[in-house]
């Protein structure tokens, strides 16, 4: 590890300090713990993480000559990728969050410069789905992967937006890996079982919408 990142580690490992806005600033570990929790704390911590290193946007503009929009998108995607990895416990805290985020951000900026004209989403999509597909054996996986590649993603996105709001919300929480119990508390359902039934009904409705011309 470089000297510079050691300094970051020391700074980030200090006990609770105050940021410029006067709010509590958590140590890396506290922030990670909160991000792995559920409910309001989690949402607040997501925003805290976003705001903490928002100055990266400026670095993207000065160091990589990106526009403000591009740099903002690269930074938001960095935070979303980091949140995903923290949730899935893929982040092992070998480096400080700052170093970790900066690496992702830097790669995203470079990607953006290289691939301005290519469809980046396709690459991400394959990577993200592969997690689940890895559960299947090679032969079954290749059947499903072929069908996923053939799926009309734009149509599915469009149909998801046509669902009634509550259905859309349930599915978005599900997509974000929230448990049915957590969804029940967010959306005021009585039990997790009710959420599961409603969620599968919403999924079925989405499938019908997607299938009908």
């Amino acid at each position, binding site marked *: 590890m470089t000297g510079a990142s050691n300094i970051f580690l020391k700074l980030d490992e200090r006990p609770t300090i105050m940021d410029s806005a006067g709010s509590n600033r958590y140590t890396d570990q506290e922030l990670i713990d909160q991000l792995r929790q559920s409910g309001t704390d989690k949402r607040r911590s997501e925003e805290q993480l976003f705001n903490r290193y928002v100055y990266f946007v400026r670095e993207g503009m000065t160091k990589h000559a990106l526009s403000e929009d591009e740099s903002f998108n690269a930074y938001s995607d960095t935070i979303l990728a980091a949140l995903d990895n923290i949730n899935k416990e893929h982040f092992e805290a070998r480096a400080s969050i700052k170093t970790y985020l900066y690496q992702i951000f830097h790669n995203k900026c470079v990607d953006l410069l290289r691939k301005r004209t290519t469809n980046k989403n396709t690459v991400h999509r394959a990577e993200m789905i592969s997690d689940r597909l890895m559960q299947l054996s090679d032969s079954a996986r290749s059947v499903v992967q072929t069908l996923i590649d053939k799926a009309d993603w734009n149509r599915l996105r469009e149909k998801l937006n046509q669902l009634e709001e509550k259905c859309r919300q349930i599915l*978005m929480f599900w997509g*974000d890996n929230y448990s049915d119990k957590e969804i029940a508390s967010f959306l005021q359902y009585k039990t997790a079982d009710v959420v599961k039934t409603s969620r599968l009904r919403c999924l079925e409705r989405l499938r019908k919408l997607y299938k009908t011309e």
Partner: protein
Amino acid sequence: MDNLDYIENYFANKPGTEFTREFEERIKSDPGFAEEVAFYLTAQEVSKEASGHEKKQRFKESYQRKRIVRSVPVRKLVYYIAAAAVVSGLIFGTYTFFRPVSSQQLAGQYEKERLQTLPVTMSGRTDSLQTGLRLYNDGKYSEAMAQFENILRSDTSNFTAKQYAGISALRMKEYDRALSYFEQMATHQGLFSNPAQILQAVTLMERNLPGDTAKAKQLLQQIVSNDLEGKEFAQEWLKKM
């Protein structure tokens, strides 16, 4: 739906050897089933993507509020303009900073920015909540309130209906009624977002009876120290009040 449940059981839990064999066999032999598996995974990814878009939108709003980035290509002339802007900014800022702003003005501004219209879903489906929201957005606050209170009669724990009933009452300047709904909202725990305290503070600031400003300040301080919804407004108002 049975198949979706079955597919979910496979992906959500650690399937046993027998279940795995049976599940994979079906994928290979039943194209309809394989398509459902592909749909399940794609739908989850698309839902995740939609959630990501919403988060990005939230980040964008937060970023725009705290905008710290200036445009990069700076020419000499811009420095002069910037210097002039700083000087006038200082004069204007000093004037603005020292000019007293009443808490009623701040509350009124919040209402104008945040409560003028409430979000109605795009679906064609109509339910009491959506009807109430449409009435509210048409400025028919008492009719909207009747809809929300009707929902609360059959579902006393409905958080959203309480929130909208309170906001409708606030718009009708029925402050006590509004406060009663917002206080009830504050008792709901573990929600993804709960604006109960900021709404209570706004109501008190607008009502402006003796002691209201002090109570509102107390609420705003709680919002800031507990990092609750509306923190940015609370921080700004505390400086001005």
